[in-house]
C-alpha cells in the first residue's frame, strides 16, 4: 500500500527515539555494571539487576513485592531517589542460576534431571534457582514452583538444606549420585586403557 505523502510517519515535533529493549542499559547503568564487575560496587540498582537476570525492571519489582521467584539479596529504598539496591554478588549468582535453568528448561522433572546428568560433574557445583516454602524448606527447582520465593544454590548446597520431605528431595539426590557414578566410571574405564603402559 502506498503511503499518503501528506501523512507524516511520526507525530510532528517529536524526534523518533531508537527502539530500546526492556532490558537494555542506560549509559549510567553500563558504568554501574562495569564498576560492579570490577569489584568497585557492592550494591547495584534495579536496571543492572534486571539486565543481568534477563528480565524487565517491572518483572523484578513484581517478583520482589510478591516474594515470587528468584530475587537477589536486596535492601529496600530509603528514598525515592535511591531506589531498591541489590547486592552484586547475589545478582551474579542469581543470573547464573537463571541462565542454567533456562538452559535445562523442560516440562517434566525427569527431563530436567536427565539434562542435568548429561552436563557432568560440574553441574553439582553450578547454581540453580531453588524454591522454598513458607517455613524455609526446599520444595524443588523454582521452575516447577512459580508461586514461591526462590534462591540460587548449587545442587550440593541445595541437598544439604532441609527439604519438605525426603520423598521430594529423592529425585535430586538420585541425580547427584548418578552424576558421581558416571564420573567415577569415566575415570576408571580410562584407567583400564593405560594399565599396559610401563610404570
Amino acid at each position: 500500500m502506498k503511503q499518503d505523502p501528506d501523512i507524516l510517519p511520526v507525530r510532528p515535533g517529536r524526534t523518533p527515539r531508537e527502539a530500546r529493549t526492556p532490558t537494555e542499559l542506560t549509559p549510567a547503568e553500563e558504568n554501574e555494571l562495569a564498576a560492579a564487575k570490577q569489584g568497585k560496587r557492592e550494591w547495584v540498582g534495579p536496571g543492572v539487576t534486571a539486565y543481568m537476570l534477563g528480565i524487565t525492571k517491572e518483572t523484578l519489582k513484581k517478583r520482589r513485592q510478591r516474594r515470587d521467584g528468584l530475587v537477589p539479596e536486596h535492601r529496600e529504598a530509603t528514598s525515592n531517589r535511591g531506589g531498591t539496591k541489590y547486592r552484586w554478588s547475589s545478582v551474579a549468582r542469581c543470573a547464573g542460576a537463571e541462565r542454567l535453568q533456562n538452559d535445562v528448561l523442560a516440562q517434566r522433572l525427569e527431563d530436567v534431571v536427565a539434562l542435568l546428568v548429561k552436563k557432568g560433574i560440574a553441574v553439582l557445583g553450578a547454581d540453580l534457582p531453588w524454591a522454598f516454602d513458607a517455613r524455609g524448606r526446599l520444595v524443588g527447582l523454582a521452575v516447577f514452583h512459580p508461586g514461591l520465593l526462590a534462591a540460587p544454590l548449587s545442587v550440593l548446597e541445595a541437598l544439604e538444606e532441609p527439604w519438605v520431605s525426603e520423598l521430594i528431595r529423592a529425585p535430586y539426590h538420585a541425580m547427584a549420585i548418578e552424576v558421581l557414578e558416571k564420573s567415577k566410571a569415566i575415570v576408571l574405564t580410562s584407567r583400564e586403557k593405560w594399565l599396559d603402559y610401563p610404570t
Partner: protein
Amino acid sequence: MQVDDLTDAVRVRRWARVGGKLVGEAPSTELSAANEATSDAVEATLEEALALPWVSAAAREPHLQAFLSVLRRIETALEAARTRQRALDLDERLAGPSEQGRVGSRPFARDGRDP
C-alpha cells in the same frame, strides 16, 4: 596431588605432555613460561585429563586417587544429608500434623462417630 573439593576438581588446569602423552600438571608458577616454552601442553579439568593418554599408569595414579577421593567425600556428604532429612521427616511425623501448621482434627471425626 591434592584436590580439595568439587570446585578444585572441575577447575581447568594446564597439563604437560611428552610425546603427546600426559606426564602431570604443569606447575602453576610457570604457567606463563609454559605457555611460551611448552608447546605440547593441554588445558583440561582433572576428569578430562584422566580420560587422556598418559605416559604411565604410575604418573596417572595419584591424580586418579585424588579425584576419586573428592567423589567419595561428596557421596558421604550427600548420604549424611539424606540421613538428616529422614530424621527430620520422622520428627515431624512423631510431632503430629498440628506441628506442621495444619489444623488438627479430633480422632474419628471423619468416620461419622463425632456427634
